[in-house]
């Protein structure tokens, strides 16, 4: 099978998985119908019918011109800053977590030395540090970024460390017998070997990043999705509030989908390498 063919078959697999996803959407649809009816009957201000939320969603986020991809000004004002904070915080956590995880994984004394610190850092709920972050950074984007980065750091760090330490001994021995240069060993043995674990850490962290983004913005921000949610609550605009929650859910789904695609392409070998995993060719 050529490389090209391999890509095509993995795309076909993605399409199949999506087909299965659509099939299971009927439950969601049924739930939304129940919501709609119940909300209309109850007439609660706080839980508006789905149709109202949908209208609010389109008005709030998708009322822009075609030239701005239909994204509204509100989107630019509140969602883009949130995404920037998320990207910066998550990016910093990934950069620091992967580098540090590899370092302490490769260099045993450092691993032993930093282990207690890492365990401690992992066990502190990052949300509890929010007041301190505000004192340190003030109500700035830096505070949000800091909190996101700190929360995402530990899963990436720990999983990278585990991935490096858990590298198969036969793999390491075989590499040693080939006398690879350090650079070559790092790029073609250590990094790919640890990549499934690194990926697990990054996937856990993206969910944490989203939560911390919203929480830190609910608490202290002058723009952003979290800030928008609080302000809508104060204005008693509940369809808009729900529309923001829907947008958050969609962002979560989008991030997961991105991870699924990247995993399919980069870690194809990992899924196939399990016992009797060879595809029929």
């Amino acid at each position, binding site marked *: 099978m050529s490389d090209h063919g391999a890509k095509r078959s993995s795309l076909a697999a993605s399409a199949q998985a999506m087909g299965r996803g659509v099939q299971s959407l009927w439950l969601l649809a049924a739930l939304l119908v129940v919501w709609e009816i119940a909300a209309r009957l109850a007439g609660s201000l706080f839980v508006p019918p789905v149709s109202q939320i949908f209208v609010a969603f389109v008005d709030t986020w998708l009322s822009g011109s075609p030239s701005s991809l239909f994204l509204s000004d509100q989107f630019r004002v509140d969602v883009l800053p949130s995404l920037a904070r998320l990207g910066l915080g998550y990016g910093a956590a990934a950069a620091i977590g992967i580098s540090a995880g590899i370092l302490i994984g490769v260099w045993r004394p450092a691993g032993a030395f930093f282990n207690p610190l890492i365990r401690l850092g992992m066990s502190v709920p990052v949300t509890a540090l929010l007041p301190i972050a505000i004192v340190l950074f003030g109500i700035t984007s830096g505070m949000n970024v800091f909190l996101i980065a700190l929360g995402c750091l530990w899963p990436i760090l720990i999983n990278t460390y585990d991935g490096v330490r858990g590298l198969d001994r036969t793999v390491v021995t075989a590499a040693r*017998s080939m006398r690879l240069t350090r650079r070559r060993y790092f790029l073609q043995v250590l990094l790919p070997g640890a*990549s499934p674990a690194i990926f697990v850490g990054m996937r856990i962290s993206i969910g944490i990043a989203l939560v911390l983004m919203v929480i830190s913005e609910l608490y202290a921000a002058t723009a952003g999705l979290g800030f928008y949610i609080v302000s809508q609550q104060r204005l008693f605009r509940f369809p808009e509030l729900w529309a923001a929650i829907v947008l958050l859910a969609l962002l979560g789904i989008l991030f997961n989908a991105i991870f699924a695609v990247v995993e399919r392409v980069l870690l194809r070998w990992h899924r*196939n*390498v399990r016992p009797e995993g060879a595809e029929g060719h």
Partner: protein
Amino acid sequence: MNPVTIQPHQPGPGTDTPMLAVQELGKSYPSRKGDVLAVRSIDFAVHAGQFVSVVGPSGCGKTTLMMCIAGLLPITTGNVMFRGERMSGPRDGVAVVFQDYSRSLFPWLTVEKNVALPLRDRGLPRTEIRDRVRESLEMVGLAHAAALHPWQLSGGMQQRVAIARGLAVRPEMLIMDEPFASVDAQTRASLEDLLLKVWAETGTTVLFVTHDIDEAVYLSDRVVVLSQGPSVVVEDLPVELDRPRDQIATKQTALFGELRENVYSLVMASQRRTSLSGDPH
């Protein structure tokens, strides 16, 4: 030990420094109850171009010995001399083929890139690397599988890739640790014949570690028989069977039967001796 061994591939007088000389090699592991001796004292030599097998009862430290000889484990006492030089670690000119092909080949690399890996960063031009990879894959009959990943191949094919990777560096000596222990009987026979063909074509010296007595006798110029661990050499037996060898004809000869029986009784005797001495594990 029998000093008068006939060595068909031995170079003429004057150049009688063996390719590999294992001198009083001992290996112990530290443990909580003090050092555990795995290899007591091993002496044998392999001359250029020879095919030498090492057999012994299971648990006699064959793999440990192989790792020590390949420079992949530090030795406790004695010396391993390669072309008269003391070996202190893995070196160019010595390639190792491991038992566990599914883990000694890197699943994230294609067959081609696996085989090319030990050739990298050695100042070889790109075209030279490509030619050598093709040549080694052709030698094991897998030129068509170059673009596949190891997990897309059967076990026997994977071990052929591992052999090709060993051959690609054009080693002076190939060390093989029970390379055919985890494939089925038919595949094993064809891999044995493939190895003999490659050995004859390349003139590479082979040190072949196995627990299979038939295999050792069938393949080798000499069979070194180890005792139960902590191991010593109990016999260094010349195998004067005609070459080329044949799975059926060779194994039907009286000499093959004799040698097989001889090695078998040596292995059994060493096993019995240790179990009678009541050596606790």
